[in-house]
């Protein structure tokens, strides 16, 4: 299957600063892809280069196999939904949506039909005659989306479109966007800095940092198998266990961590003996017992802090070997703990060796 979008060695410099640095990215058609990262990581720049609003300093961008870097935005078969919607204030809703259609030379009948179809998709048929300043934020967002879909592009770009909405509306829109993507079957490329949003909506997440791709994969993979410290920290929370690699046996690595031998999943790395190695471990992957278990791995420790967070409680535990770990326990698990002296452990496969 040919990728619908491909970036080949794309660089973008602003003066001497690289906003995008040696980007190589291939996106398969029909997916909901999220570009995720902190501000300044280059995700918006990448999106804008794809849309035609920025020119790459070097490299080439391919859309459906064709090179498009030299094409202006109106000649590309991509459309973009802006963060502030950018609805035309002097046109009503119907004409906003029809804008792209009018420029294609369709007949009035065809335009009318398609506009009403799109409005029906977001259940705003009655709003065709309204002006943008008469709409609420959520409604504007939907209209902006329909306007971008009207010319039937194969790739739709969304530049943090939900950031201006309040939490409840945001969640609702997330589901709607996902549904529309599934229904229309188009490739959606979504930019956000909110990792929860990315995990909820995406088929594929591309984590970016300082103009480069840190890791790319489906949400599960990124969450349970982060390859770098950055990804482990940016998505969800993580404990970082620093130690020295002792040995590797198949897919399991043994690491000397503060004097204790622990085991972790190799996670695609090849740690050399005695090399400094970091292991990432999610707080919720740790189990906590009142007494030393006989059937599984556990270390002795003492709870030094408890923070109640509603659905779970965050615990900080000082271990016998001198290190400290953060845990997350739900109320049921917490009820089994009596005093502050406890035993903590994890399954081998829940700890992963990081590549850096």
């Amino acid at each position: 299957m040919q990728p619908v979008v491909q970036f080949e060695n794309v660089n973008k410099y602003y003066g001497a600063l690289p906003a995008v640095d040696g980007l190589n990215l291939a996106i398969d058609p029909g997916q909901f892809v999220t570009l995720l990262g902190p501000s300044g990581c280059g995700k918006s720049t990448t999106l804008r280069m794809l849309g035609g609003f920025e020119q790459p300093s070097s490299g080439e961008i391919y859309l459906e196999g064709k090179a498009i870097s030299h094409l202006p935005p109106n000649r590309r078969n991509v459309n973009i939904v802006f963060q502030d919607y950018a609805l035309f204030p002097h046109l009503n809703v119907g004409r906003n949506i029809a804008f792209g259609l009018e420029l294609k030379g369709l007949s009035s009948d065809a335009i009318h039909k398609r506009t009403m179809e799109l409005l029906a998709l977001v259940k705003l048929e009655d709003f065709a005659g309204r002006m943008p300043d008469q709409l609420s934020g959520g409604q504007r967002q939907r209209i902006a989306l329909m306007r971008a879909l009207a010319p039937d592009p194969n790739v739709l770009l969304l530049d943090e479109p939900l950031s201006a909405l309040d939490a409840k509306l945001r969640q609702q829109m997330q589901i709607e966007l996902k549904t529309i993507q599934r229904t229309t079957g188009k490739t959606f490329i979504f930019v956000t800095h909110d990792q929860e949003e990315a995990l909820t909506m995406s088929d594929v997440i591309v984590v970016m940092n300082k103009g480069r791709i840190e890791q790319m994969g489906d949400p599960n993979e990124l969450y349970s198998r982060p390859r770098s410290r950055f990804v482990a920290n940016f998505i969800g929370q993580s404990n970082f266990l620093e130690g020295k690699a002792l040995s590797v046996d198949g897919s399991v690595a043994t690491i000397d961590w503060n004097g204790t031998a622990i085991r972790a999943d190799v996670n695609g790395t090849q740690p050399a003996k005695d090399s400094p190695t970091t292991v990432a471990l999610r707080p919720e992957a740790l189990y906590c017992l009142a007494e030393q278990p006989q059937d599984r791995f556990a270390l002795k420790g003492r709870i030094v802090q408890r923070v109640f967070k509603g659905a779970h409680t965050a615990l900080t535990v000082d271990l016998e070997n001198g290190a400290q770990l953060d845990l997350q326990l739900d109320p049921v698990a917490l009820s089994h703990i009596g005093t502050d002296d406890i035993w903590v452990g994890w399954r081998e496969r829940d700890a992963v060796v990081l590549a850096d």
Partner: protein
Amino acid sequence: MRPYFADLPKTALGAAYWLFAVYLLLPLALMTAMSFKDASFIAFPITDWTLNWYAQVLQDKQFIEASLYSIGIALATTAAATVIGVWIALLVTTEGIWGKAIIFALACLPAVVPGLINAISMRIFIRTVDIPTGTTAIILSHAVHAVPFVVIMVLTRLRSMPANLVDAARDLGADPFVAFLRVTIPYLMPALLGGMIFCVLTSIDDFVRTFFLGGYKPTLPMLIFAKVQGGMSPEINAMATIVLIVTAAVGLYAERLTRRSRN
């Protein structure tokens, strides 16, 4: 909270305001009153009142011709100044143009040069390029006078336009011309209308430029001036009052619109 501004003698300031208002309006009120005087010379007091002067003026062929001439010039001036003004404003807001500050300063040059110098320099200029005095010269000088104001009005409005609007139009398939026509111009409309009304009114009112650049056909101000030199009669007042009322009404309406939309 104590209104601290009341400390400054509020009544004195209020009096200043009303005195000033009277000062501004009194001469015009007198001029209007005189237009109803039933006598052939201008003098107070007015004992007999009549509307005859208005009847006479409105039927006066010279007056009608001068009015039409003035309006025609005004429309041509507006067309030229609006197009050029918008064009300059666009140039000054485009990225990647060198010397934008200089271009803007030069565009505003006619506004900081005293009116007489503007007229004289234009007079010299048309001689050097073989344009005769007359309608074309007048239109050019009026347009040059109005351009700085159009540029500033349009620039202000243009600066408040979200950059994304044009990007969105481009993204949806519009080339730069179409985006300009279908997104930028509609957005600029309030400023354009204000600018156009300004052009019309300043053109009709203009005296010094027309004085130096005009040909044989008089505009309204030139006609009034000629009549004044020929001897004062209330007929002139009637003419002046008509012009006053029409231009003031249009000007106030436009001013109200722009201030409303700004607030």
